[in-house]
């Protein structure tokens, strides 16, 4: 009884469009809100390290001295915790999956020097002297 029904289903699928996609020739569009990979808009990042504290996988690193923010995508588990704790919303979760790489390395973003602040501090120091 069940065998005939399964046979019918199998025959139907012989003439049906395949259930699987021929990735990577055919790309599957992501569902809205898919957790792909973390991106950082370094211009708005204030290097506060809250994301580092919130990361359960120790994938993030902030070096305030050298003004760098880095992520090791091989450690990142896409939990989105850093995005939720970021006070300036500079971290976002992209729907696209991270591309393949041939070697393991961290992605490092360097925050450019804030020239306006520097001028102010110079002026301040000259006033003091």
């Amino acid at each position, binding site marked *: 009884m069940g065998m005939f029904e399964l046979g019918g289903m*199998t025959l139907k699928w012989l003439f049906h469009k395949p259930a699987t996609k021929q990735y990577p020739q055919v790309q599957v569009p992501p569902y809205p809100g898919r957790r792909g990979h973390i991106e950082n808009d370094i211009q708005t990042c204030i290097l506060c390290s809250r994301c580092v504290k919130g*990361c*359960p996988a120790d994938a993030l690193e902030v070096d305030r001295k050298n003004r760098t923010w880095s992520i090791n995508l091989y450690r990142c588990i896409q939990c989105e915790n850093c995005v939720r704790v970021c006070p300036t919303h500079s971290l976002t979760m992209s729907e696209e999956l991270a591309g393949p790489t041939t070697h393991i390395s961290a992605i490092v973003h360097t925050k450019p020097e804030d020239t306006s602040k520097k001028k102010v501090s110079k002026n301040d120091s000259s006033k003091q002297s």
Partner: protein
Amino acid sequence: MGKRSVIPFGPQHPVLPEPVHLDLAVEDEKVVKAIPQIGFIHRGLEKLTETHDYQNYVYVAERICGICSFGHSLGYCETIEQMMDVDVPMRAQKIRVMLHEISRIQSHLLWLGLTADAFGFESLFMHVWRLRENVLDIFEMTTGGRVILSINKVGGLVRDISDDVLSQVESKLVSLKDEYQQIEKTFLSNSSVKSRTVGVGVISHDQAENLGMVGPFARASHVNNDVRCLGIGGYRLLSDFVPILDTTGDCYGRIRVRCKEVVQSIDIALEMIRSLSSGSVSVDVKGPIPDGAQAVNLLEQPRGECFYYSLGNGTQYLERMRMRTPSSENLAGMVAALQGCDLADVNMIILTIDPCISCTER
């Protein structure tokens, strides 16, 4: 009486998705004794509560096992919420039950596919796994992940699911139910399935009770230990819940229980979607866990009852976290079921018990 010899089975074996080793003492073709050995994938995840913040540990808890990942994060969060006296919003509780039942569907479908593969029914295996892909699509649509969902947090959910997405989930579940019922008929009425499973690895009702078996394995021997009946957490919201029991106690009975549980879980998920009311899905939980606070929690995972215990020490870290998982309960039953069986039936019996070694060893 034939000559007794020992055949090593596992830890790497085509029928085992995860590593467990069995020493099978055989006389001719009969297994007279099975000695299990575990410990190949122990990761010390309970110890990690001492170094991970209790809020961040959710992401560790859901990595205890890939198949029951949502269940572990749910069980952990409910335990911490009990310790900290947190009232989770109604909408979050219902979505949690819905997602947990859908994760039970995917776990049972994965298992049914593996079982079909184990007795050489390739087309059935492919159809079941094709259906499972639809369930994983539901996860991706609602949570953003296909296997590790990362939607639970202490105090509720990290994201809400829109009504538009929920209606899509509802229609997907309805069409899944129709298609699944055709496959279920094959599982339950096909003669080649029955010839491999009926009367194999029988566990009686008394044996199941004495060995403390849990989950579908015990329910196939007519032992009602379904934790969902107790109405813990969001399960108290179910209008009517009748556990699925079987009296045969053999491999076929276990297949029948799981087959019927898939339909039951679809019905529960649909009930939760249809009764959802609007509102928030989380409350803020801050501060350390009170010193000496304790909580216990029970959750019906796809493989059976999982027990959680936690103890706070006045900091952001837990003093102790204990999880007693269903597969570690069922290992004694597995050894009993293997005693006296044919050597050719060993893989079928191990599969129908569905041991999850990642859960067992943590």
